[in-house]
C-alpha cells in the first residue's frame, strides 16, 4: 500500500502531512521532492546508507572522433555541442538515451555511468521505520528519473508514504503513479485551489483513489466557498494556527505534538488502509 502526498502548490503542507501520516501509521517514508527535500528535518533519521543513482552518459574517444558533429545535430536534448573539432557534453541535459552512440559513424562514443543524485536512507525513531531521501544534484534536469528510480525500490506490500514534488509536471506524475491512495493537500487560498485542481485533474485521469486535506485553513466561510458545488469535499480540515506553524518550522511532527491531528489523520486514512 503506497500513499502519495501531493498538492500542486508548494508550501501547502505536503511534507508536514506526509511526515504526520508516516508517524501515525509507522510507515516507511520516501522523500521524492528531490530538488528541495525537507522531510529529514521532521523525521530525523539516523542515516546509515547513501546510494548513488546513476544514468549512462556518453564519453567520446579522442582518437576515433573526427568531429563530424552528427551527434550534436541529432541530440534532441541539446546536450552536445562542438567547438572546433571536439564534441562536448552538457551533462545535466543528457537523458542517457543512447542516440548519439547509434548515429556516430566512427563508433567513437561509449557510455559510462554518471551520478545524478543520491538516496540517503536511515531509521527514524519518530516514525519507527525507514526513511529514504532523494537528493538531486543541484541544477540537474534529471529529477523525474531520480524519482522513478526511487519508486522502483518501494515494496508495495509494505505501507509506504511518498512526499511528492510541488507542481503539476511529469515529476508529479511520477510520484503519483505508484500510489494506491493519493492525499491531495490544499491550502484554501486562490493559489492553493488553482494548483490543487490541476493536480486533481492528473489524479483523476490516472484513475487514482484520493482524498483531500485542507491545510492552513482560515475562516470557515472561505473554506466553504471553495468547496461548494464540488463532489469531492475535504476529508479533514486543519486550521492555520500559530502553534502549528511554530512546531512545524522547528521540525516537529504535528501528529506527534497535537493529539487532534493524530486522531484526525487516523480517522480519515485508516478506513482506506483496511479496504479490500
Amino acid at each position, binding site marked *: 500500500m503506497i500513499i502519495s502526498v501531493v498538492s500542486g502548490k508548494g508550501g501547502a503542507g505536503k511534507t508536514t502531512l506526509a511526515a504526520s501520516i508516516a508517524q501515525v501509521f509507522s510507515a516507511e517514508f520516501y522523500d521524492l521532492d528531490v530538488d528541495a527535500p525537507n522531510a529529514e528535518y521532521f523525521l530525523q533519521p539516523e542515516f546509515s546508507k547513501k546510494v548513488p543513482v546513476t544514468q549512462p552518459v556518453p564519453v567520446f574517444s579522442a582518437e576515433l572522433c573526427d568531429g563530424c558533429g552528427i551527434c550534436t545535430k*541529432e541530440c534532441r536534448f541539446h546536450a552536445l555541442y562542438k567547438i572546433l573539432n571536439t564534441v562536448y557534453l552538457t551533462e545535466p541535459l543528457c537523458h542517457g538515451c543512447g*542516440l548519439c552512440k547509434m548515429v556516430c559513424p566512427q563508433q567513437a562514443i561509449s557510455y559510462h555511468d554518471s551520478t545524478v543524485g543520491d538516496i540517503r536512507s536511515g531509521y527514524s525513531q519518530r516514525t519507527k521505520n525507514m526513511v529514504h531521501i532523494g537528493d538531486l544534484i543541484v541544477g540537474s534536469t534529471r529529477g523525474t528519473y531520480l524519482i522513478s528510480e526511487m519508486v522502483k525500490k518501494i515494496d508495495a506490500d509494505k505501507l509506504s508514504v511518498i512526499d511528492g514534488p510541488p507542481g503539476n509536471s511529469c515529476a508529479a506524475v511520477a510520484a503519483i503513479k505508484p500510489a494506491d491512495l493519493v492525499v491531495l493537500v490544499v491550502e484554501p487560498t486562490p493559489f492553493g485551489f488553482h494548483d490543487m485542481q490541476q493536480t486533481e485533474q492528473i489524479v483523476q*485521469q490516472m484513475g487514482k483513489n484520493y482524498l483531500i486535506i485542507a491545510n492552513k485553513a482560515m475562516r470557515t466561510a472561505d473554506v466553504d466557498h471553495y468547496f461548494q458545488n464540488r463532489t469531492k469535499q475535504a476529508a479533514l480540515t486543519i486550521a*492555520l494556527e500559530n502553534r502549528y506553524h511554530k512546531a512545524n518550522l522547528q521540525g516537529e511532527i504535528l501528529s506527534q505534538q497535537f493529539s487532534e491531528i493524530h486522531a484526525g489523520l487516523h480517522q480519515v486514512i485508516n478506513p482506506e488502509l483496511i479496504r479490500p
Partner: protein
Amino acid sequence: MTRQIAILSGKGGAGKTSITASIIKMMGSVVAVDADVNASNLPILLPHVQQSTTAYYGMNIAQVDHDQCTGCGACLSACQFDAISQNEEGRILIDSDCEGCAACAFVCPENAINMAERKGGDWYVSSIDNGYLIHADLIPGEDNSGKLITKVRSEASTIAKEKDIAYIVIDGPPGTSCQAISSITGVDVVLAVVEESLSGLSDYRRLAELIEKFSIPHFVLLNKAGFSAEVEDKIVAAAAEFSGKIIGQIPFDQDIPRALQSLQSLADMDEYKKTITELLEQITSSLTKT
C-alpha cells in the same frame, strides 16, 4: 538597457508570488513574467487583460505509422525509457513515458516511427496597469522543460525592448533544478524569499549554491519571521556564507494570507507598503550602480 530581477526561494510556499506581485504594483513600467509555468499564480494576483494566446509545443514525441510497422521490435530494445511495448497482436505502442529522444525512429528499419509535435500548453501576453504580464499554462502532467520558461522570458525581453521598459521582474518556480536555472540565466539580480523554518533554510542553501554557480548577486528577504530566533540566526549565517545581503523582514502575520483571500497583496496593506518600497529601492539602486 533592460534589467532583470528574479524572485526565487527553493522552497514552495515561501511567499515568492505575493512578494513579486507586491513589488510589481509598486514599480513604474515593468514587464512581469510568471516562470512557474506548471502552477502559475501571478496572474491570479495581478489584474490583467489578456492580449494574445500562443500554443506551446514541447518535445516531439514518437508516433508509430501502423501501416508501415512490421512489428519487428527493434524499437523496443532501443528505448531506454521503457516507453514502448508490443501487445498480443504485435502492435507497437508508445506510452506517456516517451521522452522524445528519437532513438526508436533511428533504429526502425521501416521508417515507421515519426517524431510528432505535441502541444504542451499555451503562453499569453497580457497588459497590466503599469506594463505587461507574460505567463503560461502547461497542460497538467506534461514535461516541464525549461523550454517554455525560456520562451516566456524571451518574449518579455522583446516587449521590454520594443516598449523601452527598464525592468523585467520574474516570479520563479520552486526547487533548484532545470526550471530554476531557466528562470535565472542572464538575470541581473535574484531576490531570495526565505521562509523562517528549517525547510526554508535548507532550500535556501540549495538555491544559493545554484545562484553562486551563475555568479549572480542576490538579496535575501526573510519571510514569515518572528517565531524562532534560533532558525533566524541560522538563516542570517547562511546568507552571510553565500554573500546574500538581507534587505528586509516580514513577520508571520495571519493578516497577510487573509488579504490574499481577497487578492490583495502586501502593496495594498498600509503596514507593509514601506517594507516593499524600501526593498524595491535597495534592489533597483544596486542595479543602477553597476
